[in-house]
């Protein structure tokens, strides 16, 4: 019995035991422990033999189809008891057997078991949560060994540990670590709690300006007009409409009517009928509210200064011409064209008064005047410093002239070069006649005379000074541009077809390219391959002048519609920049050979000098800054500046004007 009670106790305490075998009794939650614990002793007593099954805790239905139910300790099969009971027998048994309630089925052996009174009692006690042992007194008086009373004999006679009276090393170590951490600042003292109550401004995030703006933006709903005298049931007679007025009112469109109803007079308030247009009026009011604008659209405030691109100050881009220094007076009519000698000491100007004048740049002295038989359209000084030749075009003629300025040896060498020419054996028929000037023309310096079939407008030299291109503008002719070779006295017509009226031409300074400007386009031809390389679209109506950057990759075009187009040939065929600084048509543009400067002259009498920096770096676009407007020329016959040219070495610009002067700005 005590054994049983202990085993029950263990079971109560440790539920882990539920893994232990058998759960025979479905009725009683703890019965299988009970049975199991009973089995070695009391089952032995109950049954004659020990038929303990050794299969372990397995689902017993595995043995469903076998005749045995497991194996006993000796390894012999335990056969299932012959059970003949069916449902009916079971039921009858339940009805008739008085001990049926205390019979349990042992799954392990397949036998029925009848519990004794004691066992039943034990089960009851366990069910009630009592100790299994009847005789066990759970309320026995407890003996307090460790009381407050100090006895003369200790409970244990163990001497006190040393660690109980010396300071703890571990604690010391821990405290030391903490102290170190505090010193190093790894541990911070707890921040004192803020006692002040925490509030926050709900509208703190809101910008005052937006609030004000919202208030400013607020548009109140449109108010209804207050009723006036005409709405009265008894209006003063002047508000009542006469017959004609009524007729007119009816004929008017409802939108045009001044008042939307007819004022009517009633004798008393009681006589006023229901207002027939009530729904109508309400609907209109609703429409008013619905369609009224609720938001004010604001224009964006842009500072005009911000829209101007950031450019360096002209002050930082010096040197550039700033003031008029010299005026070259002498011509009596407008000066169409100017050109500076390669040395920069002489200046040649051609005018409509049929003269060409040579000037000393530094003193504005006219050193030489050559008269020709027509208005001079264009002059060009040969860029070759080893020869001294000036090409002059007037009428249908180009004259190559040796002005005899500068080094005498160069002048005589030039004359020798021209006179030493030998006629080749087979002379081709050329469209241009080359003749040698004789007589008084020769004394004036004229050396070669080229007669063209048409009027020549422009002459320009190749950089080497041997080739000379001239323009004979004509709308439908293929003979508009011819290129002369001075050393061989040959003339070529590079183009077979006309692509429009040619305005001006220019040679590329380095490569064998040839620029031809027609009214709207600039075509770039490769002279070696004889093909069109590029076609630049100028976006303007009529090109007047053109200049090629000494580097050769940039071109500027002036046009009669007041624009100057800068082309970057590497970038695009469209203008990189359009400058509209002039008020009237541009007549001449020029690049400086060394300084990053270009100038444009216009009919408004001004020359505008711009800083045009071209970088070697292909990634960097040219920097274009207008730096100076130079005024000086008087406008004559609506013409101002006709040509501009830069000094070859100094940042000086020459301009020729319709007032018959050439001016130097430095």
């Amino acid at each position, binding site marked *: 019995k005590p054994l049983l009670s202990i085993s029950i106790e263990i079971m109560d305490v440790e539920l882990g035991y539920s893994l232990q075998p058998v759960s025979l009794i479905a009725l009683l939650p703890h019965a299988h422990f009970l049975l199991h614990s009973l089995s070695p002793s009391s089952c032995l007593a109950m049954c004659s033999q020990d038929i303990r099954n050794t299969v372990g805790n397995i689902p017993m239905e595995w043995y469903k189809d076998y005749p045995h139910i497991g194996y006993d300790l000796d390894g012999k099969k335990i056969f299932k008891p012959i059970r003949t009971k069916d449902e009916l027998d079971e039921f009858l048994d339940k009805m008739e057997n008085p001990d049926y309630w205390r019979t349990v089925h042992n799954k392990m052996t397949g036998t029925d078991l009848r519990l004794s009174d004691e066992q039943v009692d034990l089960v009851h006690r366990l069910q009630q949560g009592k100790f299994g042992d009847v005789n066990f007194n759970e309320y026995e008086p407890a003996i307090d060994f460790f009381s407050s009373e100090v006895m003369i004999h200790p409970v244990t006679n163990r001497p006190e540990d040393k660690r109980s009276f010396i300071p703890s090393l571990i604690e010391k170590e821990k405290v030391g670590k903490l102290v170190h951490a505090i010193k190093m600042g790894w541990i911070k003292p707890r921040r004192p709690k803020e006692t002040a109550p925490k509030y926050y401004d709900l509208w703190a995030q809101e910008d005052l300006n937006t609030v004000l703006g919202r208030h400013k933006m607020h548009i109140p709903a449109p108010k209804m007009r207050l009723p006036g005298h005409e709405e009265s049931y008894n209006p003063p007679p002047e508000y009542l409409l006469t017959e004609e007025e009524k007729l007119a009112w009816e004929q008017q469109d409802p939108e045009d009517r001044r008042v939307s109803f007819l004022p009517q007079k009633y004798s008393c308030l009681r006589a006023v009928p229901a207002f027939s247009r009530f729904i109508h009026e309400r609907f209109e009011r609703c429409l008013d509210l619905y369609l009224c604008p609720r938001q004010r659209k604001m224009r964006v405030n842009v500072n005009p200064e911000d829209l101007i691109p950031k450019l360096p100050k002209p002050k930082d881009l010096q*040197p550039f011409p700033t003031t008029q*220094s*010299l005026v070259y007076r002498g011509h009596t009519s407008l000066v169409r064209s100017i050109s500076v000698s390669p*040395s*920069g*000491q002489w200046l040649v100007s051609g005018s409509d008064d049929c003269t060409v004048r040579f000037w000393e740049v*530094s*003193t*504005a*002295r006219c*050193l030489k005047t050559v008269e020709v038989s027509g208005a001079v359209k264009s002059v060009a000084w040969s860029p070759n*410093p080893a020869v001294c030749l000036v090409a002059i075009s007037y009428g249908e003629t180009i004259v190559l002239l040796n002005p005899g300025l*500068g*080094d*005498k*040896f*160069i002048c005589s060498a030039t004359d020798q070069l021209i006179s030493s020419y030998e006629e080749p054996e087979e002379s081709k028929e050329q469209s241009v006649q080359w003749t040698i000037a004789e007589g008084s023309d020769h004394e004036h310096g004229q050396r070669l005379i080229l007669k063209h079939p048409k009027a020549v407008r422009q002459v320009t030299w190749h950089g080497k000074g041997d080739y000379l291109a001239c323009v004979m503008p004509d709308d439908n002719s293929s003979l508009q541009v011819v290129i002369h070779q001075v050393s061989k006295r040959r003339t070529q017509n590079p183009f077979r077809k006309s692509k429009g009226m040619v305005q001006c031409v220019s040679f590329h300074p380095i490569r064998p390219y040839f620029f031809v400007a027609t009214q709207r386009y600039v075509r770039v031809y490769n002279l070696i391959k004889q093909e069109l390389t590029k076609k630049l679209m100028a976006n303007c109506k009529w090109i007047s002048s053109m200049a090629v950057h000494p580097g050769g990759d940039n071109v500027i075009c002036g046009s009669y519609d007041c624009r100057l187009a800068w082309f970057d040939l590497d970038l695009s065929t469209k203008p990189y920049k359009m400058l509209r600084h002039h008020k009237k048509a541009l007549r001449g543009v020029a690049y400086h050979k060394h300084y990053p400067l270009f100038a444009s002259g216009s009919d408004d009498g001004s020359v505008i000098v711009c800083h045009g920096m071209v970088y070697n770096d292909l990634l960097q676009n040219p920097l274009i800054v207008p730096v100076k407007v130079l005024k000086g020329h008087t406008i004559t016959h609506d013409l101002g500046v006709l040509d501009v040219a830069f000094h070859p*070495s*100094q940042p000086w610009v020459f301009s020729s004007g319709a007032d018959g002067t050439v001016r130097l700005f*430095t």
Partner: protein
Amino acid sequence: MSQLQARFFTENKKYAIDDVPFSIPAASEVADLSNVINKLLEARIADHKHVEFDFLVRGQFLRSSLASHMDTENISTEEVVEIEYVQKFTAPQPEECIMHDDWISSVEADSEWILTGSYDKTARIWSLEGKAVMTMAGHTDVVKDVAWVKRDGLSSLLLTASLDQTVLLWEWNSEQNKVKARHCCRGHAGSVDTIVVDPSRTKLCFISLAELKCLKTVFSLSVPTEEEDEVEEPNRPRKKQKTEQLGLTRTPLMTLSGHNEAVSAVLWTDAEELCSASWDHTIRLWDVETGEQKSMLTGSKVFNCISYSPLCRRLASGSTDRHVRLWDPRSKDGSLVLLSLTSHTGWVTAVRWSPSNQHQLVSGSFDNIVKLWDIRSCKAPLYDLAAHEDRVLCADWTDSGLILSGGADNKLYTYRYSAYVSDAGA
């Protein structure tokens, strides 16, 4: 009214007064101070005549009231002001107007004669009274510069440089009034624009504006006798010139090259040193013995003309940006401008230091005005000589008290100035 403590002193012993401080009103101007000095002198010297004085406060001319001058110059008014007084430089009086046939490109005068070069291809000698004495026509082109070489007795040597790339050496006998071309100097491949003779009168140097290689050539003038052969130089094997009827041809002794652009002016600073100004924005100093460049001063604009004063050892340059700048040629490769005198409105084409006064110079400009400067008052010129009707091309001083200027209006003006000595009458 506030008073100032001032002490007056002068270097002219004739006008010395007691060295004691005076209390003078702060608002007093030049005329008031001048009166004060005159009063003091009258008290000292019995027969004192009234003299106009000019006043210098710390080396700067007083041009406004004393108080405002000291305010702008940041001089303390608490201390005694040292004021120097000098006799007032009286305005140059226009004297002669000598008409030419064409523009006057250059002028050089000495105590008796005026030599001018003109654009009508001749050089002329005039007396100081404006009488034409001699015309030298030999050049085939515009005469660009003229120079006296030496004058001993009645015969004198002079040089003319021309656009026809030659320099002619003339001998002029003033008694017989005959002129003869002695030598023709060639070597330039462009017009010869400036010609200078060294102080020892044995060498000359001329330069050309058009020269692309920017050469500067030194010619020997040593004993120019007719028997002497051409001076042949191995370093300059130019084409042999046929001796023209004008005289013997001479070729250069030395060529100084280094400028990148046209050389516009040249001068001798002493017997061994040449100074040249160029359009490449530099002034270079050359050692003539070795032919090497000694130092370089860099400006920012084209130089038109330079002048050197041995008295104050400064260079004055006129450039295309209307400023007259003063340089110290002894500074090593610095480009330090000591002073810039700004009053012109056009290119400055002529500057010339006074031969006798270390503070004064004249400048002529394309704005038709000749200005007389005292470098002690750099804000404004002393006097504007506005006689020309066209651009001024040249200017000169003489020791004898003349300022000359010639220009594009074909007129040579002479002005008589009085130095400190009041012999011309105040």
